[in-house]
């Protein structure tokens, strides 16, 4: 049974549509990451699961039951907010026990459950502190513990790591993944950080803003591998991966395209088009051996040294191209003339009009 199911869901704020025609299934126990540029509706979709944003069209089901209009408290979900949303006037213990108290549970039961969950996230020593006296990471844990305590079918996270510093973020990332494995509950996780999206989720849903003219938000829904290696359209191709995928529009000539002196045969689906959009990730673009005349001519415009690798920006007739080169390789100097070669096995092709992938 699916944990969360969206069927042709639309959400509007006043007259402005923010989510349109969203259909997406989060299977039971799955970790799904919603990723996309700012304003694409990630938070809105997450909040519609929680019951904090109203759904205008379509159906949203949790555990098979239609939940469009259900009270937030009745949805079998728990949410971890970006700001953690801890009650500053209550101690950690009171924060954790708040929901139980509201539901009229006995004092002893509350205390026991709070102690249990505090032990799980390692907060046992901090139960009597207020949130103001905790570090960012500890607050994060309180928010997590509050969610765990509800034993929900679905955990919702809205950019829970964005307030933490880089080092701690990596640690918490691993912790949440481990937590998912232990809990076995479904999780929907919103982020605009690609690394989080690629490393944490069983599946990634890439979303685009309607304001940019897209007909629907959902651009691709698949495993991290699928999304990275077989982007369904130009939007996903450009959005996923750093540095971005190189993209160039090339004229089709007799079922082939030319990349400088390099000729690539197109698959039948692309052969009849007048133009095709060709994409290649920076790590697949190669520098030809010195003196070789193959591929496209270019000059080194900018070098970014990351220590273990170099990111080269090259000026070419097809516009600037980015190339990623291991540090160990022989590195050209700034302004040097080089030749670039495509890796024909890692070429992505897109229709220039529909922007959809061509196999």
């Amino acid at each position, binding site marked *: 049974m699916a944990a969360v199911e969206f069927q042709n869901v639309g959400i509007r*704020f006043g007259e402005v549509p923010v989510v349109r025609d969203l259909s997406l299934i989060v299977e039971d126990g799955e970790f799904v990451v919603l990723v996309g540029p700012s304003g694409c509706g990630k938070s809105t979709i997450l909040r519609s699961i929680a*019951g*904090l*944003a*109203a*759904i205008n069209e379509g159906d949203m089901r949790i555990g098979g039951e239609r939940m*469009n*209009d*259900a*009270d*937030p408290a009745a949805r079998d979900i728990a949410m971890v907010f970006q700001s953690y949303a801890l009650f500053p006037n209550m101690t950690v213990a009171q924060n954790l026990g708040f929901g139980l108290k509201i539901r009229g549970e006995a004092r002893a039961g509350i205390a026991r459950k709070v102690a249990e969950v505090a032990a799980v996230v390692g907060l046992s020593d901090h139960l009597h502190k207020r949130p103001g006296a905790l570090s960012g990471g500890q607050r994060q844990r309180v928010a997590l513990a509050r969610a765990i305590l509800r034993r929900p079918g679905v955990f919702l996270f809205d950019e829970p790591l964005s307030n933490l510093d880089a080092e701690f973020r990596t640690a918490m990332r691993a912790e949440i993944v481990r937590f998912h494995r232990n809990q076995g509950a479904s999780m929907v996780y919103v982020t605009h950080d690609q690394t989080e999206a690629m490393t944490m989720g069983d599946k990634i849903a890439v979303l685009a803003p309607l304001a940019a003219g897209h007909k629907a938000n959902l651009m691709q829904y698949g495993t991290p591998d699928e999304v990275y290696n077989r982007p369904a359209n130009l939007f996903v191709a450009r959005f996923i991966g750093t540095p971005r995928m190189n993209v160039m529009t090339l004229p089709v000539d007799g079922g082939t395209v030319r990349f400088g002196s390099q000729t690539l045969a197109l698959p039948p689906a692309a052969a009849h088009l007048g133009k095709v959009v060709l994409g290649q990730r920076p790590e697949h673009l190669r520098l030809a051996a010195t003196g070789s005349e193959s591929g496209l001519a270019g000059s080194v415009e900018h070098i970014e040294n990351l220590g273990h690798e170099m990111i080269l920006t090259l000026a070419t007739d097809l516009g600037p191209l980015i190339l990623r080169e291991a540090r160990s390789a022989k590195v050209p100097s700034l302004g040097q003339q080089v030749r670039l070669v495509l890796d024909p096995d890692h070429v992505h092709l897109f229709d220039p009009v529909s922007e959809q992938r061509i196999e």
Partner: protein
Amino acid sequence: MAQDIAPSQPNLWPYILPTVLVLGACTLYPIATVLWMSLHDWTWGGDSIFSGVKNYRLLWLKGSFVIALVNTFTFAVSAVLVELVLGMILALAANRVTRGAGLFRVLMILPLMVSGIAVSLVWKVLLDPTFGVINAALGAVGLPEPNWLGSTTAAMPSLVMVETWWQTGFVFIILAAALKSLPEEPFEAARLEGANGWQMFRYLTLPMLRPVIVTVVVFRLIDTLKVFDLVFGLTGGGPLRRTEAVQTLTYQTAFKFSKFGEAAATVVIFSALIFAICVAYGALDRRTGGAK
């Protein structure tokens, strides 16, 4: 800013209803009644006979209402001007100093704690022409000793002076808080550009404080237009009506001479004026994207 777009938005009208009821009882009922009263010859217990605009015409013919209106506006505009200038100078000064600012703040809010009637008594004693300490001090250094509250020329300025002593603290507190909340960078940038103190005040401080100044001026203006306590306590409207204010006149008309219809007419006109100021302020505030 709070918002709620949840599907199962709870109905919050029960939370507001008591306020609407109390507000309705305390404002709509009086407004309607006062309008009605102003159109009638009104005596308590007796019959009230519809008299049309007679009460309003009387106000005009008797002239005392017009005098009170002129006095009230003279008082309000001069008091607010003085309070604004003094409050601004004090706020700027307090913003400069590091030590003693807290003590100064307490000293400035003390007069605000005093009731208008106590203020009146205090100043009646201080301004006493023969035994008052102020005239004693003036006399000691050879200055003229005015009859502050008793002379037709000095009474209104004296009233303004007492009002200023009483309420400048309010203007000061608000302007000081607003000054503190201004960002530092524009001033640092201006200093790098070589702006002097006056230029920074004229081109940075003043424009940035504008919405706050407008709000303060409107609040003080309406408060001073409603002046009652000081006139009641200090001059009783005299000498020769030189300090009669609209609200003291209303009080006299109603409770001394039992002419409730006429009193109601003064209240209607006066409330309409205040309403107009509120509306103008609302429009201004919306346009400047101002304080509230």
